[in-house]
């Protein structure tokens, strides 16, 4: 079977989502050619406002970079506008004359900003907010001028206005209705939104019709129909979108407001499909991302012949992406469309919630101030859930997940399928500026397999978004007042650099107190034995503490069993007696439950059991009392010894000086420690490093011994 030729007009989010879905289903079925009008690879248009607001860079919103197309053998033409479509010949032609034949064609030309017929609208300084270029223009203008106006107080207009504020421009928003976002909000929510944005510095002109743009060579201001005027150097038009359907219309495809498609996204021509903002399904052309993605999936399925059920339309929802303001809206919320089922206003918290119903089913919702419930409500609306479900589950402000999200420690696993920890999710939100659980899923894979951890991931994302970078970043404390460096920094410097002695370390790292204090001298002396065991004579401070920083083993007389505790203790003692340690380590070895030795409250505990030797670490019998955790099980004496030494060596290398085993364990992930010591090669590495250190330290001791004699 030869590969079929698939041509996609439009390199935007809908078209590429569809291509991604096709590749998932049938990676080798089509030769794919993509034509894009803009000169970039595919980027996330929704995040343009984030770029403008300075929260993202242009690079970071690229969804598929050039190599993505290459790896998938997709031919990508950027900066090429398709101007002619010949349905009979199944061929498209671009402005520059490139022709391509197709077996199947996807039209994903999206939409353009609607430019209303206002006098002077084509003057320089009047732009739309649709593309990377528009973003660049706005950034450019902000460097030269001070005053900006946005015509249109809808979702996109407000996001543009917030961006202009961030760029340091004085920003006015003109809206023709009596309240903002009048398609998605009611007057109450819109009013709260207006007040919030006014506090951020925006100014509003409501119920105002723009008559003309003033200015001679470039835009200088706006004249309203009532005769008043407003000064502005940059005017951003954001009054709506128009599907790009000229090409389709001229080629003879059936169009209405947009290109008419059936439930399988087919146009009036059997070889041509349309998807996204340029498509009209059951009389609706969508302008939000979720429906476009759903359509993309269905279209991919129809092309690959795996789609059993057609697309049934989407429930559009909107979320305002303006920092500091949380607004969510879904479904029918206008009066006359639906009845109010629930309306809650909290003047103290500044939150507002309204849920609407129709025929006893949840049909829409508005959230202001806190949108945590957005996903749940979206689900209810999508499903057409009976209104009783709202009463059945009175949503608390804090779900169980939310409180767990706060209390769980950073290294705990959230997504078991993909082994993603809480801290990596927080990191994705903090460092990469991700906003939603979906984005976190795409980046970290958390919740991408079975999806069971989805509510937890959502809660952690909410948690991370609530706090700023500083309050969640791990504290980096200096070792002592002699230096600004933390233990980790000093360790990595000593590990990588080549020093001759400790004084050189202090000099190179710019120790404030050149001779150091007992705290840092002891720490440096220990790290010296770790990284320069061959030169350990320098570690004079270490000698003072050596006895207390040894491994001390407690071995009660064994019960009759298959486990020889005395022998294991002897071997361990031989291997470890000269090893320096960050902090004293007490060990206990028991032959089993009938010969208790307190293995669970020692730094290292080893116990015979029906499964073999169990190796525990991190117990502590003093305040704070800690229970040791199982690190591994050994069927043989030699493996038990190996595991214990590997754990000790790992502790030597990873712990800070003075850090007890339990503390190190709490700071590190238990799974990671297990993985390292259970991995044969890593265990061997750890063993050989421990052995090497012991050899040097032993000979040093012996040398000392001889000298003193």
């Amino acid at each position: 079977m030869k590969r079929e030729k698939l041509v996609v007009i439009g390199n935007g989010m809908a078209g590429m989502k569809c291509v991604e879905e096709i590749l998932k289903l049938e990676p080798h079925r089509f030769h794919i050619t993509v034509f894009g009008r803009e000169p970039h690879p595919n980027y996330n248009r929704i995040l343009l406002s984030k770029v403008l607001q300075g929260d993202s860079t242009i690079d970071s919103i690229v969804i598929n970079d050039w190599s993505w197309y290459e790896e998938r053998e997709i031919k990508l033409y950027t900066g090429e506008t398709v101007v002619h479509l010949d349905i009979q010949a199944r061929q498209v032609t671009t402005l520059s004359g490139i022709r391509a034949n197709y077996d199947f064609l996807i039209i994903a030309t999206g939409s353009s900003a609607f430019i209303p017929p206002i006098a002077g609208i084509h003057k320089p300084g009047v732009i739309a907010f649709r593309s990377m270029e528009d973003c660049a223009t706005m950034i450019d203008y902000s460097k030269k001028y001070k005053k900006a106006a946005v015509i249109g107080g809808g979702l996109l207009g407000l996001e543009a206005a917030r961006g202009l504020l961030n760029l340091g421009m004085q920003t006015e928003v003109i809206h023709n209705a009596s309240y903002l976002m009048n398609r998605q909000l009611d007057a109450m929510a819109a009013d709260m939104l207006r007040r919030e944005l006014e506090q951020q510095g925006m100014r509003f002109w409501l119920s105002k019709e723009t008559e003309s743009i003033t200015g001679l060579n470039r835009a200088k201001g706006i004249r309203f129909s009532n005769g008043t005027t407003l000064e502005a150097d940059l005017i951003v038009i954001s009054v709506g979108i128009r599907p790009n359907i000229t090409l389709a219309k001229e080629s003879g495809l059936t169009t209405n407001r947009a290109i008419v498609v059936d439930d399988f996204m087919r146009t009036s021509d059997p070889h041509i499909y349309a998807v996204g903002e340029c498509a009209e399904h059951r009389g609706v052309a969508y302008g939000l991302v979720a429906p476009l993605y759903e359509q993309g999936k269905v279209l991919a399925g129809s092309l690959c012949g795996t789609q059993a059920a057609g697309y049934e339309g989407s429930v559009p929802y909107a979320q305002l992406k303006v920092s500091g303001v949380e607004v969510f809206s879904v479904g029918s919320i206008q009066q006359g469309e639906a009845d109010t089922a629930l309306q809650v206003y909290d003047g103290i918290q500044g939150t507002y919630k309204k849920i609407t119903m129709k025929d006893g089913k949840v049909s829409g919702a508005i959230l202001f101030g806190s949108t945590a419930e957005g996903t749940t409500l979206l689900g209810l609306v999508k499903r057409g859930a009976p209104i009783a479900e709202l009463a059945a589950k009175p949503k608390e402000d804090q779900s169980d997940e939310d409180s767990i999200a706060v209390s769980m420690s950073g290294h705990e696993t959230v997504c078991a399928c993909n082994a993603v920890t809480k801290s990596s999710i927080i990191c994705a939100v903090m460092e990469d500026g991700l906003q939603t659980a979906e984005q976190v899923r795409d980046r970290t894979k958390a919740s991408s397999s079975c999806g069971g951890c989805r509510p937890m991931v959502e809660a952690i994302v909410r948690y991370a978004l609530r706090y700023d970078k500083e309050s969640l970043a791990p504290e980096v404390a200096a070792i002592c007042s002699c230096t600004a460096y933390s233990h980790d920094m000093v360790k990595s410097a000593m590990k990588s650099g080549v020093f001759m002695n400790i004084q050189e370390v202090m000099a190179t790292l710019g120790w404030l107190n050149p001779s150091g204090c007992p705290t840092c001298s002891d720490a440096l002396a220990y790290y010296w034995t770790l990284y320069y065991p061959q030169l350990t004579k320098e570690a004079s401070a270490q000698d003072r503490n050596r006895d207390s920083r040894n491994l001390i083993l407690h071995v009660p007389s064994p019960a009759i069993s298959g486990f020889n505790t005395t022998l294991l203790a002897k071997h361990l003692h031989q291997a470890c007696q000269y090893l320096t340690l960050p902090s004293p380590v007490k060990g206990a070895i028991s032959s089993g439950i009938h010969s208790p030795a307190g293995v669970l409250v020692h730094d290292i505990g080893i116990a015979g059991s029906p499964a073999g030797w169990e190796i525990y670490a991190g117990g502590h019998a003093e305040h704070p009392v800690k229970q040791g955790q199982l690190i591994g099980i050994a069927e043989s004496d030699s493996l038990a010894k190996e595991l214990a030494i590997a754990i000790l060596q790992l502790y030597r290398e990873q712990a800070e000086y003075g850090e007890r085993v339990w503390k190190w364990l709490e700071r590190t992930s238990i799974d990671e420690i297990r993985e390292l010591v259970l991995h044969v090669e890593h265990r061997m590495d750890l063993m050989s490093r421990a052995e090497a250190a012991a050899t040097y330290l032993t000979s040093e001791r012996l040398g000392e011994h001889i000298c003193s004699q």
Partner: protein
Amino acid sequence: MQPIRKSSAVKDALVVLDTQCPFCSVQCKMRVVKEPDATGANRFTYSIEGLPNAASEGRLCVKGRNAHQHAVSRDRILQPLMKKNGQHVPVTWEEALNTIASSFQTITQAHGADALGVYGGGSLTNETAYLLGKFSRVALGTRYVDYNGRFCMSAAASAGNKTFGVDRGLTCRLSDIPLARCIILAGTNIAECQPTLMPYFTKAKENGAIIIVIDPRITATADMADIHLQVKPGTDAALANGLLKVLFEENLLDHSFIANRTSGYEQLKAHMASVLLEEVAELTGLKEAIIRKAALAYGLAETGIIFTARGVEQQTDGHVAVRNFLNMVLATGKIGKVGCGYGAITGQGNGQGGREHGQKSDQLPGYRSIEKEEDRRYVAGVWGIEPDELPRKGVSAYEMMEFVHRQEIRSLFVMGSNPVVSNPNANLVEEALESLELLVVADMFMSETARMAHIILPITAYLENTGTLTNLEGRVLLRESTAAAPGESLHDWAILCQLAEKLGKQHYFKYDSAQDIFDELRLASRGGLADYYGITYERLRREGSVYWPCPSTDEDGNQGMMFEHKFAHPDGKAIFFPVNSKLPQEIPDERYPLIMTNGRVLAHYLTGVQTHKSPSLAARSLENYVEMHSATARKHRIEDGEWVEVTSRRGSFSVRSRITDKIREDTVFVPMHWGGLQNVNKATSPELDPDCKMPGFKTSAVHIAPLRLKSYKSE
């Protein structure tokens, strides 16, 4: 000692392997990228990425993400080993194979060919499974070949065959799941066993489906359920009777479907008159109201799918229990159309393909029967032997162990399986295997069974061995493998060919590649129920996967939906089968007051021979445990995390306790992935289902006691 320095020479030694995760029946496609690590000390780092395909859609679970670890582990067996003076020592392939061949011949001369047994596995490729069956019958001439899939799929497989006339895991496609309005998950814990399938179910739920989970435990799967029937283990057949009763009472039946597409309805109807819902409630430990609620949800839904897995199937009435769920499917006409159907969720990687091509004692390739003359003639023809030379049917896996115990079988050849851990009544099996004159184990690792072997043959791993596997849907996938075989390990199929040569049967085993074997398999399966004739390697490369049956190479293949117009019985109809509500095989009493059931955990697979060798998977689940309700723990004076001895009439084992409220008070649960002293099968029952010979793993009466109260006996 010199500090390790970065080496610059190894920079571009990057290896990319596109393969399939070996760890369950979804067969998620994935890419393994191997790179020299920064130290350059001949060490490598591996990165794993899911690859898009129609079943897993690019998802992987923790098993897949770490599935390379065991394959590249240092613990792989790299040379043939032979036990000499009680020690396994390396020998040449020549010596190993010669010893096996001459031992086979000696035993055959003294006791007949049926004194040789062959034991396969559900993780072997279709090619190897096929060849193992042929090897047994043609090279050895024995009737005794069976495999561990007997413990996996036999109940559902036989129920599918009896009811529909054919057994293919899913009668519909995975993509039908989101379109079902009601889904029943009976005894299946998808969230831990096939996690990458979960999104199909969450999508269904988002689309408004009601999800019903039948399980004695509140598993991660049950967490998703709208209705959870926390049933007593072993009473699924009774529960299905209750559900059917409500469907009948409320007349939620599809009478035109029943009239046109089924037979046996009158008997079922008569039987239903005798079913009393309160009796069902009593037997299953459920309230009548919730049974009614579940039945109404399924009956009223426009579309629906019922899935079963080991919870229902690994019972001594597993076969009829599945049939009773199929009665529900047929009575409501929910099959053969979009969003409808029945699925048996296979457990093993090639659980589906492994049972179709003749490593089962009563079968020949293409799901043909070894007792049907026509089938014998056809396959004998493909193999170039006389039909009379083909042995007749043998016995099931566990029965083979009993034959070994009775020394009727004197030599056992095991490939890709660990029977001493996976069989019920492990103590007897161990005793049996110890008595063998020759035990040969072909494996990658020193499994519990390999330790007992006289000869161990090192085989290649999934990253090295090419072949096809059939996923739970009945979708055949090609796993192309390019990694070099480590040490002296050989492909499993190549070992069979070489051994055949030593036995003088080389002209029946002339293959240069897995593809050669597959081409013969295509021919052997042609015209059978599981017809692979139309599937070729070329086509699999092009199309990614193809559903069986696929009789023709040029047809576009069926789209995966079965029984749209007719069933596979000669009259085109499906068959109802009345099932009696019964008590479980073993009923708790004063001495053994609790019911023990078993199952999987997320991080492990089968007996753990592979997953325990993966440090990342081992790290996530170090040891076995027994899960029990807090009230049960109180009653038996057991604290959380302490050693507990679990004892049944067969034997006992010791594991740590795990106390939870997510299980019935009368039930305890033990995972099945550990051997040795922690092997749950020391206590499971060897009683077999009379219809399909599935052991009743999932229901054993046990007694539990804290180990600390038991005094050590010096021995």
